């Protein structure tokens, strides 16, 4: 009798213990000891002359997420040797570009195969990131430079551990994502900050919005109409990019398949022969700040770019038909006067507020 009693008691204890364990588990998962943190939603302030912007359903903008992203963007802890931050190759004073054709400041010291793109109006960049559009969104894009041995060369597991040592980060990941320091939250925060990098207050923008006291000179207006007619198919609309991929005739031999076909353009991603030698259209906004140009930075200045389109186009089967503006010949006829007008207009696309905006600069 007594042993049966003991057995029953033991069973009861086990059951009780089991239910307690289940209970505490659930409690931990649902609420934890801290109250649930709700970050503050943010809507981008879109310039009136811009198209509407889509909020990312998986990564809605919040005040806390953007602030965390800004901190991370400027933090050299993000590189393996704690030497480089995103801002090392994306400097605000030159519209988040790096002024180098092919940089070699990465952890390996090797010359990179591609030119660092400027970060401008990325909230609208919904057709792939990188020069070949290989990354699907800003979140996954960040993993590229973070982990590349020739760029920041960061081990993401170690990065998580490193950031967990910083109380401010622990608190900010919690308040922005209700999460501990995780790589997924790191890239989400970076993406949120990057989506706020809106440049839409150049002299051209104020003119476009018919703001009082703003006008463009006759020469600039001529430049505007020339850009619209001769360049506007690719550098389209108020964003001055179609977010598309084109072979703009800077090369006609794409047989070199080194580095997992990095020189072959968008074909590398789509594997479609029609995409051979096609690279992403960069925006013309702040273009006077973001030299050198092209995916490999081969053109040192705007004159070289315009000279290319004028008469140096190298033709291959995928060369964009839009470049054949000279009868049946490849090239875009531009007179000397037109050249000056185009350059004058491009200068009116420089947005000094963008490069001085304290919200985008290194946090204290």
């Amino acid at each position, binding site marked *: 009798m007594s*042993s049966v009693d003991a057995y029953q008691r033991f069973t009861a204890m086990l059951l009780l213990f089991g239910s307690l364990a289940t209970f505490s588990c659930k409690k931990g998962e649902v609420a934890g000891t801290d109250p649930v943190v709700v970050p503050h939603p943010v809507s981008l302030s879109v310039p009136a002359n811009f198209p509407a912007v889509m909020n990312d359903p*998986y990564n809605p903008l919040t005040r806390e997420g953007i602030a965390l992203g800004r901190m991370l963007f400027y933090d050299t802890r993000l590189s393996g040797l704690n030497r480089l931050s995103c801002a090392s190759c994306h400097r605000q004073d030159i519209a988040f570009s790096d002024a180098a054709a092919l940089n070699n400041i990465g952890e390996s010291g090797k010359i990179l195969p591609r030119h660092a793109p400027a970060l401008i109006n990325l909230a609208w960049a919904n057709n792939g990131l990188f020069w070949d559009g290989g990354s*699907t969104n800003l979140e*996954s894009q960040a993993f590229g430079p973070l982990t590349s041995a020739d760029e920041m060369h960061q081990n*993401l597991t170690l990065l998580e551990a490193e950031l967990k040592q910083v109380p401010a980060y622990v608190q900010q990941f919690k308040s922005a994502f209700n999460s501990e320091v995780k790589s997924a939250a790191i*890239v989400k925060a970076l993406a949120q900050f990057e989506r706020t990098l809106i440049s839409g207050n150049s002299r051209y923008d104020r003119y476009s919005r018919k703001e009082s006291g703003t006008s463009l000179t006759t020469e600039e207006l001529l430049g505007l109409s020339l850009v619209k007619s001769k360049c506007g198919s690719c550098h389209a609309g108020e964003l001055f990019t179609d977010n598309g991929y084109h072979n703009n005739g800077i090369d006609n031999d794409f047989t070199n398949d080194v580095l997992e076909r990095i020189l072959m353009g968008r074909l590398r991603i*789509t594997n479609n022969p029609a995409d051979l030698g096609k690279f992403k259209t960069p925006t013309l906004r702040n273009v006077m700040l973001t030299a050198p140009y092209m995916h490999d930075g081969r053109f040192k200045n705007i004159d070289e770019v315009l000279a290319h389109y004028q008469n140096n186009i190298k033709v291959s089967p995928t060369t964009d038909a839009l470049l054949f503006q000279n009868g049946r010949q490849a090239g875009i006829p531009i007179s000397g006067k037109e050249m000056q007008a185009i350059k004058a207009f491009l200068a009116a696309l420089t947005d000094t507020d963008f490069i001085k905006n304290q919200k985008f600069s290194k946090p204290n």
Partner: protein
Amino acid sequence: MKTLKNIFCLSSISLLLLSISSCAKKSDVTPEYQEDNLAPFSVEFDNIVGEKTLSFNNATSPYTNAVGEKFTVSLVQYFISNIKVSKADGTTYTVKQDSSYFLIKGADRATRFAKVKVPEGDYTKLTFTLGVDSLRSTMDISKRTGVLDPAGGMEDGMYWGWNSGYIFFKMEGSSSVISDDVNGDPTGKKQFKYHIGGFGGYSAPTINNVKNITVDLTTAGIARVRKDRQSNVHLFVDLIKVFNGKNSFSIAAHPNVMFSDYSVNIATNLTELFKHDHTEN
């Protein structure tokens, strides 16, 4: 007296338990199929090369492919996902997707099992994916956890940052037939690298090397999944088929295959890797 009684009680309980379990195994009454009546089930990926067990960098005893090239293996890793089991009557159970991603690493014996839960029942067919499906590949990054966590995935080198895609199957090694020029291994280390991936593209269709593998279990032993035991389907994964499958190729001719047209040929060979050896029930 009391102690004796206790001992007696305990031993009778143990006896009872023992007899229950052995009974179940002998009689093997097929339980009624209920989707929520889950029991442990595993698939074991036992890497071999031809008739030999897999050993790494074994230069003294290299493997030989169909065209007579000798090679050694330094790394083998692959993703297994979306496990499904089917009964003879065609009833199919799909393992809850969140619990159905595994990274099998040749160098880490502990990773050779894909352990899941399926309803009690007798299964005659096993289906799984070699790779990571397009849905998961493009999913919100915070839903890609465990072996798919980009943090971990990159450490294992199973993620291409440049095209936001997972490498499904990775095998590296060396062979003396590899040239020292750009068509081979310019570092002179005579290494081959096969990194096979490609989920079919985010917006436009592109290389799709996701492979669904179906294994008939009727010949070498059906899986009798019961709660009181671990039913384990033991597969041999014969890596020689990478070279000797339907699209047989020479290492010298193709020492490096990553994200390219040729990867499609190798991915086809990968479907021949898996051979059911036996089932432990």
